[in-house]
């Protein structure tokens, strides 16, 4: 797909829908780019599952602290006003509904908000779930950033997930390279098209029915 939003533009578009003052947890991959596109005048506080609220950008060369990592096991920094805590407190923030927004990548999202992003279910795959199932059940709003289709052109927005679920009916909004899509009681609905992308193009690349923007 040559048209539509880049990875950075998808992250920037998602950032627009995060209110000022939100506590935000970001998944690995494109969601991490959200930190670079915080809209002017807004402040987000980043939570990372392994026990830090107030995560800052990666450290400058030569200044990494071996005891300061994020949930993706990358070295990070802590902003002024940050707090450290153990895992039970960290997941109390998640499960207890204290985190406002979680932005995740995915393999599939279904029209009813089901998400599958932890395992292909292949017999030789080593299952690894991390905090994904806690996040999708506990965080108030689950956003997804993903390419609209796989590298092979298969739709990632589907009627029913064929991969094992991370959580049922949890996703509220999806930011793809082609469009912003809401999960509604009537299924997928376009909120906004990327520049140069038509509704027909989105429809063709979606694995189930999708409603046009109102």
């Amino acid at each position: 797909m040559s048209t539509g939003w880049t990875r950075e533009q998808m992250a920037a578009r998602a950032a627009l829908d995060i209110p000022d003052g939100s506590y935000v947890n970001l998944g690995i991959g494109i969601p991490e780019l959200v930190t670079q596109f915080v809209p002017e005048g807004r402040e987000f506080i980043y939570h990372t599952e392994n026990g830090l609220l107030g995560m800052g950008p990666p450290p400058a060369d030569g200044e990494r602290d071996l005891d300061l990592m994020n949930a993706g096991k990358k070295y990070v920094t802590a902003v002024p006003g940050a707090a450290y805590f153990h895992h039970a407190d960290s997941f109390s923030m998640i499960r207890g509904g204290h985190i406002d927004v979680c932005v995740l990548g995915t393999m599939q999202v279904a029209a009813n908000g089901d998400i599958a992003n932890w395992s292909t279910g292949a017999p030789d795959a080593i299952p690894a779930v991390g905090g994904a199932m806690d996040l999708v059940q506990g965080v108030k709003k689950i956003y997804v950033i993903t390419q609209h289709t796989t590298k092979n052109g298969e739709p990632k927005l589907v009627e029913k997930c064929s991969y094992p679920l991370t959580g049922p009916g949890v996703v509220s909004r999806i930011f793809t390279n082609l469009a912003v899509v809401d999960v509604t009681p009537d299924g997928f609905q376009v909120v906004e098209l990327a520049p140069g992308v038509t509704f027909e193009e989105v429809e063709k690349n979606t694995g189930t029915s999708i409603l046009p923007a109102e």
Partner: protein
Amino acid sequence: MINKKSPSAAAAVEDVFDGAVVMVGGFGASGSPIELIHALIDQGAKDLTLINNNTGNGEVGLAALIANGQVSKMICSFPRSSQSRVFPKLYREGKIELELVPQGTLAERIRAAGAGIPAFYTPTTVGTVLAEGKELRDFNGRTYVMEPWLEADFALVKCEVADPLGNLTYNKTARNFSPLMCMAATTTIVQTKKLVAAGDIDPEHVITPGIFVNRIVEVTDPVHEDTLIAEGASYP
């Protein structure tokens, strides 16, 4: 005066027995008690059930313990990562058992054991394959899954500062699961970068109160998993 100081890492892990359930603190490389793990490799206890978020990296620490054939079962949330090779190979060969537990459920199961709560209900995994066969119950119209506590015979943990009573502080995200594991194990063994006199840690700053700690080993200049891997190190 109570003094929980152990003369060496070797002495501290001496009584870990074959078939023991062992919790190991750390999240990836941060907070991993490498010296205690290597002492356990030297000690040689077998058929261990290991509890950690991951399965170790490279050929040092947790990965080395697994590679040494001492672990029969792993309880963790994320068994594969970029530099994790030992566990995936043994798992595919059917030589090691895996109990996969979501990260938050793993933390809470450990906390529950330390708190004397045999089980709890969580929304995590409801509607997924990981909830299959588990007891479900509705509270206020939402479905939850019952998860049991997770107890251990031993916990191996790394901290930043300890006093002889076992009061501990940690450093940044190296804290992770360690305070929970200290509570949940019958015998908690801690390696500390700094051992100070009782009273030198401000009581307001204690993260793990000494009641949860049994043995302390001072390791003033601990090795770090990422540094060892960058050096291409292996153990033993």
